[in-house]
């Protein structure tokens, strides 16, 4: 296994963890594959546990007109029956809102309601330190948000209120290289 993890969910209809045992359900509802997309019948989050993510990570997926949820960052099991994760909530199906939530011990708290920005698009959620950023088709939406509740975990997808999602990508955020050239210096041995 290696990151970034890409998954187009091309497989037989059925439980996501049957399709690939490295997808782990964090919440009470099991994710499933239907028509080569991932979906769920209720509040849910699936994280990729086939690799270890850095704390600074991203998750990305494609939404459609039915989607109510989106990419998830820093998902983790918090206790016997609770979980934590950051959720980019794209609600094209009902409100049209783009929102950012955190789920801590299974409870949802709003971080930002960006307004009616939902669309069928490629959505990316980045968690870097205490900074959270959402991108739609590569363009950052609104301003960077700050939250310190969840420091670590795995990337995934969260069909929190239903709908279908496709083309997951999750990985680590690039770290700036400390190596630099001194102009005019010789590098011969």
């Amino acid at each position: 296994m290696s990151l970034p993890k890409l998954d187009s969910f091309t497989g037989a209809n059925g439980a996501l963890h049957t399709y690939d045992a490295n997808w782990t359900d964090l919440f009470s509802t099991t994710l499933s594959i239907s028509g080569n997309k991932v979906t769920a019948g209720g509040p849910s989050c699936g994280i990729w546990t086939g690799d270890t993510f850095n704390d600074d990570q991203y998750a990305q997926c494609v939404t459609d007109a039915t989607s109510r949820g989106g990419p998830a960052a820093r998902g983790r099991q918090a206790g016997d029956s609770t979980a934590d994760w950051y959720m980019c909530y794209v609600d094209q199906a009902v409100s049209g809102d783009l929102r950012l939530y955190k789920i801590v011990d299974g409870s949802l708290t709003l971080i930002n309601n960006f307004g009616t920005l939902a669309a069928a698009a490629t959505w990316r959620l980045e968690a870097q330190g205490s900074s959270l950023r959402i991108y739609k088709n590569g363009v950052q939406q609104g301003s960077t948000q700050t939250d310190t509740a969840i420091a670590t975990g795995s990337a995934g997808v969260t069909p929190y209120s239903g709908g279908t999602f496709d083309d997951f990508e999750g990985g680590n955020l690039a770290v700036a290289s400390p190596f630099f050239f001194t102009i005019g210096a010789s590098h011969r041995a």
Partner: protein
Amino acid sequence: MRYYVVPKIGDGLGIDTAFRPKYTDPGSLGVGWNVGPVQAMDYGLENVFLVALNLDATQHATLAAQGDVLSVPNPITDLVSAVALPTVKTKLEAGNIPADWVTTALTYKQVLSRVMRIIQFMQRFHGLFGQLFAGGMTLDTRINQIPIAQRNNLRDAAVSLGADTSAIVGTTLIRAALVIVADQLFVNGLPFGDTTF
């Protein structure tokens, strides 16, 4: 952009009832009420939010008139007025946000800056350990009055954010400990609303 401290509503059980700032739901202050985009900072498991909203003058007046809302005056670069000082302190303290340090020598921006950092520490504490103010604990509880496990939780939450807790001793009050930790956080600035604090 205006800043407000408002109560928390919701039960956290679902999207429609998520913990969120009071008065930010469409229609919550009458027909046509819509605050638009909402930037919110929850205070962990305590019952208040700090929010940044872009309201017009009429909307602002409506929200500011609510008895359980602390509306931060504009511009935030103004000094805290003598008239506003008691209200600022009372409403922050009512939400378990220490405010004994607030004086008229500070600007509202300076007050918000420290309050936001206290809030961010409480978010980390919530994420790791749950609620701080439980079992009778108040802002005036001393560190050595807290059960050892909770004392260690406070320390570990602070250390996880890179803070040095060596200045916090047994006789330190919780209110002072929160400020000691908060003042070490976000040394490069904390963006919220349209400002970096």
